[in-house]
């Protein structure tokens, strides 16, 4: 084994992969939520559709999107690998186990992550797949012909089950992030009395703000369009 594979297959190295992919996905969330704020613009979806067109055609964005796919897949595979190791480390459990004073999110990252993954599959089928390969209507703006993803979004969020599902999924994402954000820095070895309290606070604020903004989109569309 080379020193690289040796390092990355150690428990700490595998945690490093979890941390780096997780942090990249946090960056992705910032980009994703910022762009999607265009859904709130009252222009019949023009800005949103032009943005969606840019996001699917720009070569730089293309590279970022592949990095995102790799991060998601890597984050999932490495978490399964680590979970297998962790389960094997305690083959016989305790008869009486009282949860100690640790956060619910930190103890259930696997379950929270699995729910977020299921959401992600549904979400990508609904929008990402439709945008790339689905039979999507076109609209004409000054710049030419654009795929009308905005209408697809409006249509999807007329369904109350979809809206409720999205809001619930965002709650799970919030819990996942509430531990994941600061945990990623701890794994990188970034723990210091000067900046760790700030990382923790920013992590909590981030884990509330981003999912709330995401969840507000289907709710807003549902109540303004029906």
């Amino acid at each position: 084994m080379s020193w690289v594979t040796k390092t990355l297959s150690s428990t700490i190295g595998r945690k490093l992969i979890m941390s780096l992919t997780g942090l990249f996905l946090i960056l992705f969330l910032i980009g994703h939520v910022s762009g999607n704020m265009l859904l709130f613009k009252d222009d019949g979806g023009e800005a949103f559709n032009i943005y969606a067109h840019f996001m699917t055609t720009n070569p730089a964005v293309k590279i970022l999107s592949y990095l995102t796919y790799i991060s998601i897949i890597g984050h999932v595979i490495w978490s399964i690998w680590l979970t297998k190791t962790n389960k094997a480390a305690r083959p016989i459990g305790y008869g009486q186990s009282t949860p100690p004073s640790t956060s619910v999110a930190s103890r259930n990252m696997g379950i929270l992550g699995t729910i977020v993954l299921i959401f992600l599959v549904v979400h990508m089928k609904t929008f990402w797949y439709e945008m790339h390969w689905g039979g999507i209507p076109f609209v004409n703006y000054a710049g030419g012909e654009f795929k009308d993803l905005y209408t697809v979004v409006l249509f999807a969020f007329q369904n109350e089950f979809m809206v409720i599902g999205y809001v619930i999924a965002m709650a799970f994402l919030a819990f996942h992030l509430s531990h994941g954000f600061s945990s990623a820095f701890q794994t990188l070895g970034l723990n210091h009395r000067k900046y760790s309290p700030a990382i923790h606070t920013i992590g909590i604020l981030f884990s509330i703000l981003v999912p709330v903004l995401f969840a507000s989109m289907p709710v807003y569309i549902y109540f303004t369009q029906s």
Partner: protein
Amino acid sequence: MKLTLKIWRQKNASDKGGFVTYPIDGISTDMSFLEMMDVLNEELSAKDEDPVHFDHDCREGICGMCSLYINGHPHGPKQTTTCQLHMRSFSDGDTITIEPWRAAAFPVVKDLVVDRASFDRIIQAGGYVSVNTGGVPDANEIPIPKRIADEAFDSATCIGCGACVAACKNASAMLFTSAKISQLAMLPQGQVERMTRAEKMVAQMDAEGFGACTNTGACEAECPKGISLTNIARMNREYFSASVKSENV
């Protein structure tokens, strides 16, 4: 005090084992937890039954030999060692569940006794400094800032009892290993073997079959010596920098 004890009994490493319930009476609140266990064992011996085996040594909270997972907490409800836990922490009529540490790397030897030699092997892999023995060195010969000395000492207070492993949902030994790496990484004496130490101790920790850390903080909350999670972050830094910089390919 009158208590009901639910104790894990297991004849040997290959036995399946199970809980056995023992009622016990006449326990003073001033007794230590292990003295209460002694009372039980005297009763069992008088009845010609096999006494409950458990680890203990100094009974002063400094050796790290006692263990016991009591009512869902390593070393019981207080942040101390089992030997320093007193019966006043319990109430009359309580049922107390007593189990061994649970980890693949800590196999049960008998009853509540587990084999913690995996910790010894982690130390053997690099948790030392190689020095020539000779005359006693002068005090303060190597200047070390007070803050660094204190911090290294905080890490060195780890008694290697294994409560971190017992508390961790992944049976991870990272708090222990990181404390042992930290105490030497911060001091001048530890610099010579600093990189190989981090690499070898982590490799041994993995080879022993301990889990990985999920940063829940259960270990820190249960550690009788209050070893902090900052040690784990330091170990990660030491390990990453050793991986990149050391001459071992």
